[in-house]
């Protein structure tokens, strides 16, 4: 792509870079003490990728155990710990750090700022997240230590009461869950506050909110949502700890406490949380699709409104996770309606992306391959979400593998696919090198095949009556063949991810030089060198439209004539 770019006058610095001869220790010190948003962004990304691999190994262990009925690969309590840790890891140590990784690196560059609003808070948030993760994983060494399976949490990532009460979960497994997530929660809150302050207070001159790149918009909405999403979880976990350590009765059904109250509090966090996880995917789609379709995003104001709308409505749907709990028919009906309604702005976004591609000149480079798959898969995931919102049908589907299939379609099919897209898209900016297209294509197609093998069939096995969270199943239920294929698909995905990890390393040393604007894109981050200097912009930029680089490249037809 670099040879088709019109170089932007004056943005390329032709002076040779200074020759740094740092010792290894000095490099480590630099990274450990950094408050620079780019380095912290990369640290978050490295954390996420590391835990993605760990969580992936946990998933593979689960799939080996489930490949045949009545398997003895994992003992029941090992299995229960692994699926709890798989879920907890993927949500809190992969999904959220990816969010902050992208936000940290990209948002200041896109809004023409030199750093986040609070660099030291930024570093603090990262290290809190890391320490929380280490604390969670330390649990594997607890209990009977390395001889047994340790003391990792084994109550499901949703940790329903009263299974989490002292009476039913003696030992410290549940405490590791509650306390380490309180720690990461502090990091998350710090990151959210930082993002809001950055986007609202540090935009460059001329960049009104309605001229901001959509990625930055979505990170603003997600940070606002996070303020009131992660905090209910923290509150509930404090209550759980009070119950477990101080003899409290919040969820103690013997003393009049309520197990259902835990469910409400958890899902008041849990549902908006999944929107938190998916918003970065939306943001990446809104950046990648226009650039690779060679068209401006269709319906920018509608996209902003839809994002804000999704944020608000998502706060009112939580009890669709509780349709089987015995709420009144009126309550059930209310949550059916609110859940269906959140599908409307979500659909609007999908249609706008389609309209962006319509009439375009689509270049199917690796980022766009992943984004296109995202569109298909997000559509399907949304539709199975509608199916699940039908409360009576949910009385059958709830807690079955159909639900597992649905949310993995969202988490992997939509979110992970777009995270890959974003990494392939912005890796050149961060490193100055292109990732290998060939390896990228292998990664894409293998991952696509493995993903569909696993998660398409998972819908079927759920409809066939297989519940979730079971360490094994009976041979006569007819689930064995499907489970075997599902497991094989998991391994294919694993191979694909290994290819990706290899690509990350290989490209850093051997990738083609990227230049500042390898994709011929239009937002501010592409006006800096690759990688950008520590201070991002020598002089803060000034913008007049949503696509400042388009205006430069097309002086005869700038965007500000139409906005």
């Amino acid at each position, binding site marked *: 792509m670099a040879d088709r770019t019109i170089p932007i006058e004056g943005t390329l610095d032709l002076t040779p870079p200074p020759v740094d001869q740092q010792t290894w220790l000095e490099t480590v010190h630099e990274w450990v003490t950094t408050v620079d948003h780019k380095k912290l962004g990369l640290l978050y990304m490295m954390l996420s990728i590391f835990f993605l691999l760990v969580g992936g190994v946990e998933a593979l262990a689960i799939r080996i155990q489930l490949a045949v009925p009545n398997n003895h690969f994992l*003992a*029941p*309590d090992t299995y229960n710990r692994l699926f709890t840790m798989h879920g907890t890891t993927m949500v809190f140590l992969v999904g959220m750090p990816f969010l902050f990784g992208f936000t940290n690196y990209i948002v200041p560059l896109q809004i023409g700022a030199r750093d986040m609003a609070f660099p030291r808070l930024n570093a603090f948030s990262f290290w809190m997240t890391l320490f929380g993760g280490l604390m969670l994983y330390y649990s594997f060494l607890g209990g009977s230590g390395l001889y047994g399976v340790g003391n990792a949490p084994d*109550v499901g990532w949703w940790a*329903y009461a*009263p*299974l989490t009460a002292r009476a*039913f979960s003696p030992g410290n497994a549940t405490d590791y869950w509650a306390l380490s997530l309180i720690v990461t929660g502090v990091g998350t809150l710090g990151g959210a506050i930082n993002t809001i302050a950055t986007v609202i207070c540090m935009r460059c001159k001329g960049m009104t909110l309605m001229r901001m790149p959509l990625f930055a918009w979505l990170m603003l909405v997600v940070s606002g949502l996070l303020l009131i999403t992660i905090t209910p979880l923290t509150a509930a976990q404090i209550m759980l700890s009070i119950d477990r350590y101080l003899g409290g009765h919040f969820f103690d*059904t*013997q003393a*009049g406490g*309520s*197990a259902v109250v835990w469910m409400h509090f958890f899902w008041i966090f849990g549902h908006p949380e999944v929107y938190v996880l998916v918003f970065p995917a939306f943001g990446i789609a809104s950046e990648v699709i226009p650039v690779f*379709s*060679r*068209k*401006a995003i*269709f*319906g920018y104001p*509608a996209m902003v409104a839809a994002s804000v709308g999704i944020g608000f409505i998502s706060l009112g749907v939580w009890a669709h996770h509780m349709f*089987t*709990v015995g709420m009144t*028919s009126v309550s*059930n*009906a209310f949550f*059916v309606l609110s859940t269906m309604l959140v599908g409307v702005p979500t659909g*609007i976004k999908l*249609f706008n992306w*389609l309209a962006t*591609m319509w*009439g375009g*000149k*689509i270049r*199917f480079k690796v980022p766009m391959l992943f984004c296109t798959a995202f569109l*298909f898969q997000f559509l*399907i995931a949304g*539709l199975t979400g509608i*199916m699940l919102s*039908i*409360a*009576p049908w*949910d*009385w*059958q589907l*709830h*807690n*079955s593998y159909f639900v597992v299939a649905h949310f993995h379609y969202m988490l992997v099919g939509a979110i992970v696919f777009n995270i890959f897209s974003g990494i392939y898209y912005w890796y050149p900016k961060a490193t100055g090198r292109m990732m290998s297209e060939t390896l990228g294509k292998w990664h894409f197609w293998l991952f696509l095949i493995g993903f569909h093998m696993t998660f*398409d069939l998972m*819908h079927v096995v759920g409809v066939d*009556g297989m519940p*979730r*969270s079971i360490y094994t*199943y*009976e041979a006569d*239920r*007819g*689930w064995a063949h499907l489970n075997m294929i599902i497991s094989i698909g998991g391994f294919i995905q694993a191979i694909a991810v290994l290819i990706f990890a290899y690509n990350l390393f290989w490209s850093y040393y051997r990738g083609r030089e990227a230049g500042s604007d390898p994709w011929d894109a239009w937002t501010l981050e592409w006006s800096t060198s690759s990688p950008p200097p520590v201070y991002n912009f020598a002089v803060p930029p000034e913008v007049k439209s949503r696509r400042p680089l388009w205006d430069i490249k097309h002086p005869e*037809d700038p*965007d500000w004539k139409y*906005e």
Partner: protein
Amino acid sequence: MLFFLLLPALAFADGPQSMPSIFAPASTPASDIFSLSLFVLAITGGIFLVVAGILTYVIFRFRDKGDAGDKHEPAQVFGSTQIEMAWTVIPVLIVVVLFLTTARMIFAIQDAPKPADAMDVTVVGHQFWWEFRYPKLGIVTANELHVPLSAKGHPEPTYLKLYSADVDHSFWVPQLAGKTDLIPNHPNLTWVEPQQPGLYLGQCAQFCGIEHAKMLLRVYVDTPAQFAAWVKNQEQPAVDDQSPEVVAGRRVFETEACMNCHTIRGTVATGRFGPDLTHLMSRSTIASGAVPNTEVNLREWIKDPDHFKPGSQMPAMQLTNQQLDEVTAYLETLK
């Protein structure tokens, strides 16, 4: 994918099957849900075909053909208020239709008026077994539920009151009804109205601890004759076999703390912590469906419950081989 989903329903038309598919309903709530799900599938399937169709078209029609000479950017279109309105209004209308249909069914199933002659069962969920009590009949059993067949002209639904003795569980027999949770301090009510006799399979559907996977359900839908016979047998106190090994086994049962947890009606054993064993031999499985109810399995279960269900709440009482033989012989008489 739709085809795969419907395969179970197409392959098995009526009645119970070993694969408990939600698309093979045999009872009113499950059938109602199945019809609703077909309606929803039709709508979502239609949406999928349209949107995915457009996406497929777009991918092929508007891809960059790579002409080296053509460096022009396509026409930049920034939006269209009419189109935005269109694809806002149409989904809202779809939502309205889906919501009204769904709400109607919620009320129909959840608030269905209970007929006076409905069968009543009280279900108590335990870690990791099911207690079934028939209050009007004075019967207590465990893990295997018998309900009467509900004929078309003379419906006789069974209403299940759901309680929990410890943590959250969920009662799910897909061919009979949607699942309902058993939550301590929060009684729930569900009902089934089965129209085909036979054995229906299910299991606990809310993670309840280490052996959640083995908290299985067997529901026998009995014809009136079968049900009457079953009730008659269950109402009897325990069989009192006086042969020497059986008597010795009964002594083992009473002295080795078994009676602290189990009830055998007609004897001094009145424990409530574990399943009622009065008619243990009328059940085809033990350990809540984990293993078939054979003499060998029963002996092994008593010797070491963790062998079949590691983490189950029943302790191994360290019985000698002779005690095991005797107590197994005793239990084998409890038909």
